[in-house]
């Protein structure tokens, strides 16, 4: 029992502390960036009170915007108050999948910056199957999801192939592939196949009802089945990594490619398979996003899901469960941030500050140890990815 407790503490203590520390420091930033507070610098008593109130209001708004809003519950019942939570989960769903795409690559020692491009390809393919094909409901969704997975797997697999065959570094290649994907979606939304009839702004037709993911909590909430897909995928990735021969090889190559090679594991095969799988994960993210909440492909469909994925995977220490929690946290910060901006004088950018601080502390465990004077804080190995010559 103590062992289990130690392990849980060991893996949650650092993220937990980083989280608290980030919120504390952001509190100062919120207070000091507020003009009302700054005017009161001369009178210490009032200054402190106002500062605390400002910070408190900001964080309260953040909570109300992301988890539970009593104002919404008033007159409509407790459940309606949970609308923000539904929004948080909707935002987190694609992030879980793109986060997994980056985390899985980390486990194989690869740095997948390409989740953005892979997401875009998944979204394009799912959207196309969704609005172009006519099929019975369940089959249609499945086919659309599959199309998203398959096309992004090819897109990601190309990176693996280039790395395995020519040694091209995956960071450079995925960055470039992101550009290609970004411009490809701009172009394709101008073609007659994709551009919605009668529109000139880049938007595709909505996917048929038969291709949409079902809502989970009725029409009042946007919460859709994508979260179940994301959670099941996270479980699958965990199983793949920890309980299968394939995952064993992925981890072996990630931890020490030279030793893996010497023991007869093909590093090239692992590299290609990893990148294809990562593509598939991010592509599924794109597909779920289109079929679950957006329905129509737009030029900025990917938002920053592919880039935030890197932060999410780092925060989740490249582990599937950690990635799920990190994605939920980011989803909450993002949705809550909007409410915070609307209801208080604190700008949305503060959310970015909080995100950045959390990541900073997670990425530098020594810093946390130094700030909090913790000795012998057990931390897992830092996530490794190869240098430019790897």
């Amino acid at each position, binding site marked *: 029992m103590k062992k289990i407790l130690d392990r849980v503490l060991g893996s949650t203590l650092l993220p937990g502390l980083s989280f608290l520390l980030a919120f504390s420091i952001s509190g100062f930033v919120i207070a000091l960036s507020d003009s009302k507070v700054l005017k009161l610098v001369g009178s210490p008593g009032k200054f402190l009170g106002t500062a605390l109130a400002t910070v408190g209001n900001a964080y309260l708004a953040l909570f109300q915007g992301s988890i539970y809003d009593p104002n919404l519950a008033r007159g409509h019942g407790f459940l309606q108050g949970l609308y923000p939570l539904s929004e948080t989960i909707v935002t987190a769903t694609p992030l879980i999948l793109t986060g997994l795409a980056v985390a899985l690559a980390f486990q194989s020692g690869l740095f997948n910056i390409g989740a953005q491009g892979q997401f875009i390809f998944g979204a394009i393919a799912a959207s196309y199957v969704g609005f172009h094909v006519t099929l019975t409901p369940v089959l249609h969704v499945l086919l659309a999801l599959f199309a998203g997975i398959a096309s992004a797997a090819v897109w990601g697999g190309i990176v693996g192939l280039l790395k395995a065959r020519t040694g091209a570094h995956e960071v450079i290649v995925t960055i470039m592939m992101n550009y290609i994907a970004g411009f490809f979606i701009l172009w394709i939304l101008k073609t007659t196949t994709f551009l919605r009839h009668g529109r000139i702004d880049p938007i595709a037709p909505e996917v048929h009802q038969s291709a949409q993911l079902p809502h989970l909590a009725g029409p009042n909430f946007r919460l859709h089945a994508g979260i179940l897909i994301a959670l099941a995928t996270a479980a699958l990735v965990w199983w793949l990594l920890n*309980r*299968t*021969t*394939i995952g*064993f*090889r992925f*981890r*072996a190559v990630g*931890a*020490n490619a*030279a*030793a*893996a*090679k*010497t*023991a*007869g*594991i*093909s590093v090239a095969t692992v590299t290609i398979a990893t990148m294809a799988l990562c593509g598939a994960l991010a592509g599924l993210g794109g597909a779920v996003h289109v079929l679950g909440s957006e329905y129509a492909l737009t030029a900025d469909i990917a938002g920053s899901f592919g880039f935030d994925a890197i932060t999410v995977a780092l925060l989740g220490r490249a582990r599937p469960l950690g990635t799920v929690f990190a994605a939920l946290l980011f989803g909450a910060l993002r949705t809550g941030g909007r409410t915070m901006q609307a209801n208080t004088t604190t700008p949305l950018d503060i959310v970015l500050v909080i995100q950045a601080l959390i990541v900073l502390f997670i990425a530098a465990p020594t810093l946390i140890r130094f700030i909090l004077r913790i000795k012998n804080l057990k931390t897992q*190995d830092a996530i490794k990815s190869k240098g430019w010559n790897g």
Partner: protein
Amino acid sequence: MSLELKGITKSFGPLVANDSIDLFVNDGEILAILGENGAGKSTLMNIVYGLLAADSGEILVDGKAVTINEPRDALSAGIGMVHQHFMLIPVFTVLENIVLGHEATSKLGALNLVQAREKLLALATDFGFTIDPDALIEDLPVGVQQRVEILKALMYDAKILILDEPTAVLTPQETDELLEVIKRLRAQGSSVIFISHKLREVKALADRITVIRRGKVVGSAAPSASQEELASLMVGRAVNLAPDRTPHTIGDVVLKVEGLTVSDPTGRALVKAVSFDLRGGEVLAIAGVQGNGQSELAQAIINLEDHVHGSILLDDKEIVGLSVHQSLHEGIAYIPESREEDGLISSFSIADNLILDTHREPPYAKGISLSPSAIETEAALKAEEFDIRAQSIKDPASSLSGGNKQKVVLARELSRPVKLLVASQPTRGLDVGSIEFVHERILAERDAGRAVLLFSTELDEVLALADRIAVMYAGQILAIVDATVSREKLGLLMAGVVE
């Protein structure tokens, strides 16, 4: 000058590397510090040279306490050090390396090497070295690089010279020459601290021997002590230095290598048209100074090398061009030269390291699904059989000592059906006890009728294990000789001299 250490203690976390060590070196004396890898010899010397700070203790030079916080302090106290891994800049010349950190400049700040050059040449003449001050370090043989290190210490008037495992990288001839140089240093009044775990050299050179075990001085000995006495002092128990070799029968040819050439990606041949036969029940040692193509030859046999021409027949089957996985499963056990880099995944558990090669096979996997319980059961059995000492087989491999790491590699490689064992530097960096174990396992494989290809730079190991010895020099096999050959002849061959 004399040097005395009093109560030097240094801990790294829970590990006490030096536990109140006392020792002294008299003026004009050669003191050998003998101890196994990890006994704390290098830590102690790094403290004396100012690279590490002691937790407590005193350093006295000529009876006066000195404070040494950095190498500069050590140098001005007259202490010089030649490290195991040379501290030279390969793309600089000899002279540039020697003045590094002590550059004399003209008034305008330009580098002035005239005086340094004169002093260097005078010093070299004194010791009978021939050295070109303008040669680039990277172009010089290792033995000469070491002389540059020694000269560098002497240039700044070191009267006490610390040599940390200086013979590890040298050929037998170069070693003999180094020992002569050290004796000449003594004759000129320098004191020398010679750190080694090689009994033969220590006996040949030292005036006095201090033995360190697990961070403590456990005794001293005169050079007249026998090797067995010194070894048991070093290890803490009686040691069998020469493994028992029972008579055995030699079988059919298992490995036939013909015209094997291995090149690097630029097309430079590192192994040049090598041919040899190896029979079952036979140990063929490939001797030679490090870097003469042995590593590439060993890797080519399991197809880890990319640019290979020629033929390797294992039981009459061509294996060149197979994948590493296929080669291993044709019946080759492979002990890589570097356990840490190529042998083990240090963040993986011991159990996982034991199945790196066979994780796809039953009982470890059903389909693609791994079976953790089977993996752990088998690992426990192997840990027992190979005497792997760990708290738990679920601990990461990084928690093991060098000897236990090598046992994990051995256990993994010998648990497949094996026709041929390729062992590359299998005892490098191991303690005497582990060396015994590895040697016994290798001979057990031979006695069981398997072919053993042993790559070793240690003459003692080669002579103790081999039935035949092939000497590699500059990518070629210069000669294959019987194991009864003399050390001198082997030494000459290793230096590339064929009579």
